[in-house]
C-alpha cells in the first residue's frame, strides 16, 4: 500500500442532490466491485437472520408487554390510525375537557395477563445448553421485562416460548399471527431444509405479515419486520441459514476479545495472540502422538478403563463429574472385602 490518506471517497465529487433529482440509492462504487466476478454474484450481501429475529422479537415483546420506549403502540401510532381512517375503535378518545384516553389494543396484554405471562417465563425449564435462563429477564415482582434481551434468547423466545405463553392470554387472531411468524422462523432455521418447504414459506410469509398488519398499528412495521419477506428468497440462493448468519462470528469475536491483555494496546495484543494461536493450531494438525484438539477421541458414551484394572471394578459405565470421598463403617467394609475376594478373577490363583 502506497501513501494513502483517509479522506472522502474519490468517487464522491460535488454530486450533491439537487431539488427534483431522483434519490441516490447507491452512494458510491465500493472497492469490492473491482473483483471481476463481483457483478455475477447472486447474493453479495446477506440479510442476517439473527438480527432480524432479534428486532422482530423485541418489537413484538415490547408492544405486548407495553415496555416504555420499546412499545410501538404510542399516541402517535393511534393518531396514524385516525389519519388513515381505519380501526375507529382504537382512536384516541376525549373524556372530559382536555384529557385523551387511548383504548387498550387487542395486542397489549392486560395487567393480570402480563403477570401471568411473566410468571410463565419465570417458571420455564430448558434442556441443558438449550437457552439462557429466561427468568433473569423478569423483574423482582414478576410484572416487567427489565434486562436487554440477548440475541439467542430472542431466537428461542420468538420461535418457541412466546407462542406457547400467549395461548389464551390474547385474542385468537393475535395469537395465531404471532405463532405463525414463530413457525416461519423455525422452519427457516432448520438445518436440512427442503426446497419445497422454503418455496411454501415464501408464499406464506406475505400472508402472515398481512395478518399482523391487520392487528398491529402501522408504526409496528419498521424495515426489519419488512425484511422477513425477502428471507425465503435469500434462503433459496444461499442454502441453509447457518452459513450466512452471525452466531459463529460473534463467538469468534468473543475469543478475540479474550485475547486482550494489555488494555493500552488492544489491537496489538489481539494480533499477537491470534498469530500465536493460529500457528499452534496449524502445527498441531501435523502432530500425532500428542493430545491436541484435532486427535481427541469423542469420549461421550465410551468406556474408559479405571486406573486399577481389577475385573470386579469394571462396571461398563462412564463416570462423569468430580470425585467425592465417603467413609464407610466396618460392617459394610467387611461385606465389601468379602464380595471382592469371592468375585475377583485375579484372586482365584491364590485360592487354589
Amino acid at each position, binding site marked *: *500500500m502506497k501513501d494513502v490518506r*483517509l479522506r472522502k*471517497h474519490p468517487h464522491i465529487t460535488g454530486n450533491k442532490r439537487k431539488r427534483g433529482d431522483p*434519490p*441516490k440509492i*447507491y*452512494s*458510491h*462504487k*465500493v*472497492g*469490492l*466491485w473491482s*473483483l*471481476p*466476478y*463481483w457483478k*455475477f*454474484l*447472486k*447474493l*453479495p*450481501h*446477506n440479510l*442476517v437472520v439473527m438480527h432480524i429475529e432479534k428486532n422482530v422479537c423485541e418489537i413484538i415483546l415490547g408492544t405486548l408487554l407495553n415496555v416504555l420506549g420499546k412499545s410501538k403502540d404510542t399516541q*402517535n401510532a393511534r*393518531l*396514524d390510525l385516525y*389519519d*388513515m381512517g*381505519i*380501526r375507529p375503535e382504537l382512536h384516541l378518545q376525549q373524556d372530559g375537557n382536555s384529557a385523551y384516553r387511548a383504548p387498550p389494543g387487542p395486542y397489549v396484554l392486560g395487567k393480570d395477563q402480563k403477570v401471568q405471562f411473566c410468571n410463565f417465563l419465570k417458571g420455564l425449564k430448558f434442556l441443558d445448553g438449550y437457552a439462557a435462563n429466561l427468568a433473569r429477564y423478569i423483574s423482582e415482582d414478576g410484572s416487567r421485562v427489565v434486562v436487554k434481551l440477548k440475541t439467542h434468547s430472542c431466537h428461542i423466545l420468538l420461535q418457541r416460548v412466546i407462542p406457547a405463553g400467549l395461548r389464551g392470554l390474547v385474542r385468537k387472531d393475535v395469537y395465531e399471527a404471532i405463532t405463525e411468524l414463530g413457525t416461519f422462523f423455525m422452519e427457516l432455521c432448520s438445518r*436440512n*431444509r*427442503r*426446497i419445497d418447504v422454503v418455496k411454501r414459506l415464501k408464499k406464506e410469509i406475505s*400472508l402472515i405479515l398481512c395478518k399482523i*398488519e391487520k392487528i398491529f398499528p*402501522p408504526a409496528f412495521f*419498521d*424495515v426489519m*419486520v*419488512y*425484511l422477513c419477506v425477502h428471507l425465503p428468497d435469500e434462503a433459496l440462493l*444461499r*442454502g*441453509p441459514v*447457518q452459513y*450466512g*448468519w*452471525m452466531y*459463529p462470528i460473534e463467538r*469468534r*469475536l468473543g475469543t*478475540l*476479545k479474550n485475547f486482550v491483555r494489555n*488494555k493500552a494496546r*488492544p*489491537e496489538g495484543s*489481539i494480533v499477537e495472540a491470534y498469530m500465536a494461536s493460529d500457528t499452534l493450531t496449524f502445527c498441531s494438525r501435523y502432530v500425532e502422538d500428542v493430545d491436541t484438539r484435532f486427535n481427541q477421541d469423542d469420549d461421550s458414551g465410551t468406556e474408559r478403563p479405571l486406573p486399577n484394572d481389577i475385573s470386579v471394578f469394571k462396571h461398563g459405565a462412564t463416570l462423569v463429574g468430580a470425585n467425592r470421598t465417603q467413609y464407610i463403617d466396618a460392617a459394610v467394609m467387611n461385606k465389601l472385602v468379602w464380595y471382592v475376594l469371592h468375585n475377583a478373577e485375579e484372586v482365584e490363583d491364590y485360592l487354589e
Partner: protein
Amino acid sequence: MKKPVANVMSHPADGEAWKDFEREFPNFARDPRNLRLSLATDGFNPFGNMSTQYSMWPVLLTPLNLPPWECVNLANYFMCLLIPGPKSPGKDFDLFLEPLIEELLKLWKGVSTYNASTGRKFDLHAALLWCIHDFLVLATLSGRTTKGYYACIHCDKDPFCKGIRNKICYIAHRRYLERTHAWRKSLAFDGNHENRAEPSKFTMDEVLHEL
C-alpha cells in the same frame, strides 16, 4: 465430494447462488480444490464495559467448501484484517479493505500451491461468494443505502414505504399477494385498495448505471 440429495439443502453447494457461480465460471468450478470464501465483519468493544467508547473491526474469511462441521469450526475463521479503533471506520471501510481486495484479485488469478497428497504443485484459485454482516454495515460495505424510503436492499423500484406522523413504515405486504386475493380489496389495512405489483429489483445493468 458431497452427493446432492434431491430437494434438500444442507450445504451452500445446494443453494442457487453457488450453482449459478459455477455455471458462470465453469473453469473455476472444474477443480473442487478451488476455494469459495465468505467474508464476515462486525465491530466490537474489546474492553467489555460499554461505558468506554471503542470499536475495532476484525474481518474474517471462511472457506465454504468444507463439510458442514468444519465450516462452523472456529479454527477455520481466519482473521485477515483488524481495523483498529477507537472509532468505527464508517466510510473509510473501503480503504481498509484495499489490501484484502488486492490479495483476493491475486487469488482469483491463481496462486501456485503445493499439494501434499500428490507432491506436485497446482494453481489454487479462490473467489468470494458472499459477505455476512449486520444491516448497518451493509450500507458501508455495499454502498447501497439502508435508510429512508429505499431502505430495503431488494426493492429498488417502487418501494412501498409510507410516511406516517413521525417515521416511515412499510405497510403494503398485500402487494405480494395474488392479484385476485380478496384482501387486496379490503379496507381494513390502510383504508385503500391495493392494485400495485410487488416491488422489483434493479437488473445488473441498471445497478452499473446507478454507480
